[in-house]
């Protein structure tokens, strides 16, 4: 990160050349150059004077840039800002971002500019034939700044489906999750849905306690799931596959006899969720969930899309102890109470 406050006129192209010199690790360079206008509306501008507060101005601009860099994962930022007396046509500010891909660089430059307009400790005074006046942020600057802040907050807070929320004051408690792939045709090499679920379990902070694969066979499914039910190191079992309507689909028939309680609400919410992706076809799914001796068991379909929907939009949130108004995770210790 390079921050420079200068009372001398600067050449933006030379600054950019110095910023990128000898470096070939980025695929994108985005820059914005703000220049002094000769007119504000119909009023001629003869000069612009920018005051700063030595020390504090540099510190605050560095802070705004560091926050931007961190938020957009775009560490390579350049800010050059003029102070003192500026003539029309001269550059006032240069913000540039180097990044592997363009998307973050575009966003970082735009967002940082929105913050600089209202939050950089600089004060502009415009002088013309009619006298001088101090410039304050315009309502549209304030609006852009508010929108930029909202954008940053939104992307930090995951959108919880169904209007739920995560309690920011609670610490996340990981669960130990076992993933079972049920398939006649898949093997360890092409078990994409089992991999997808396992990756997501870890991505969202839980522990992948075990992973296995069985054929579409009631005996095989039950044998594996019974082992996990008996294992105190497994809190949750998620299976993928065998929930359809064809003759080979027997996962619900295998699991339901093991359930002490069936979670019917899961099926309702699953269909509401899946309907948004596959429409009426969701009715072909017999995805189900239940409790067996305190172990939570979910049976998802075999397709990757269904596993994504099932985890990302449903199971993930109910296994998160921070989810409000309530969740399955916080109930786990009570499933077996007398």
């Amino acid at each position, binding site marked *: 990160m390079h921050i420079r406050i200068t009372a001398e006129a600067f050449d933006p192209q030379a600054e950019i050349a110095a910023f990128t010199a000898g470096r070939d690790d980025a695929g994108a360079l985005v820059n914005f150059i703000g220049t002094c206008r000769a007119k504000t509306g119909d009023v001629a501008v003869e000069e612009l004077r920018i*005051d700063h*507060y030595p020390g504090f101005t540099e510190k605050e601009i560095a802070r705004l840039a560091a926050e931007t860099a961190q938020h957009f994962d775009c560490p390579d930022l350049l800010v050059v800002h003029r102070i003192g007396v500026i003539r029309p046509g001269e550059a006032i500010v240069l913000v540039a971002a180097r990044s592997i891909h363009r998307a973050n660089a575009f966003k970082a430059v735009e967002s940082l500019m929105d913050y*600089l307009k*209202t939050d950089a400790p*600089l*004060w*502009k005074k415009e002088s013309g034939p009619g006298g001088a006046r101090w410039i*304050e*942020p315009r309502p549209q600057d304030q609006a852009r700044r508010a929108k930029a802040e909202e954008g940053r907050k939104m992307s930090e807070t995951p959108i919880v489906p169904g209007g739920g929320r995560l309690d920011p004051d609670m610490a996340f408690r990981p669960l130990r999750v076992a993933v079972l792939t049920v398939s006649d045709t898949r093997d360890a090499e092409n078990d994409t849905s089992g991999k997808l679920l396992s990756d997501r379990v870890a991505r969202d902070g839980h522990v992948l306690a075990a992973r296995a694969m069985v054929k579409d066979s009631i005996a095989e499914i039950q044998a594996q799931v019974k082992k996990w039910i008996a294992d105190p190191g497994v809190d949750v079992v998620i299976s993928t596959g065998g929930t359809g309507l064809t003759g080979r689909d027997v996962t619900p028939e295998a699991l339901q006899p093991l359930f002490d309680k069936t979670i019917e609400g899961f099926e309702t919410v699953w269909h509401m969720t899946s309907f948004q992706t596959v429409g009426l076809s969701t009715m072909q799914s017999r995805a189900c969930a239940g409790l067996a001796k305190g172990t939570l068991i979910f049976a998802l379909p075999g397709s990757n899309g269904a596993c994504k929907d099932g985890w990302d939009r449903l199971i993930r949130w109910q296994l998160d102890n921070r989810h409000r108004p309530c969740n399955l995770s916080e109930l786990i210790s009570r499933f077996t109470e007398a």
Partner: protein
Amino acid sequence: MIHLVFLGKFGDVAPAGLGEIALPALRNAGVRTLGDLQHWLAQHQPLLGQAMAATPTRLIVNQCVAHDLSQAIADGDEIAFLPPMSGG
């Protein structure tokens, strides 16, 4: 000694001699906190007082944002008064 810094349009209305004030003089006038200082300035410098009353004013003490006007003033403090900023 307290060092005062007036930025932007506050600088236009603050008299040149206001940059440094002896702490005992402020203490004698009953000034203990940032809020007291702001009140005292408004009384003794009506133009400055009006300018500050007309716009959101931020106080910076020793280069750190002051969030609490009940913060006590100490000898050697540099206190800056900031009108709304306009960078970019």
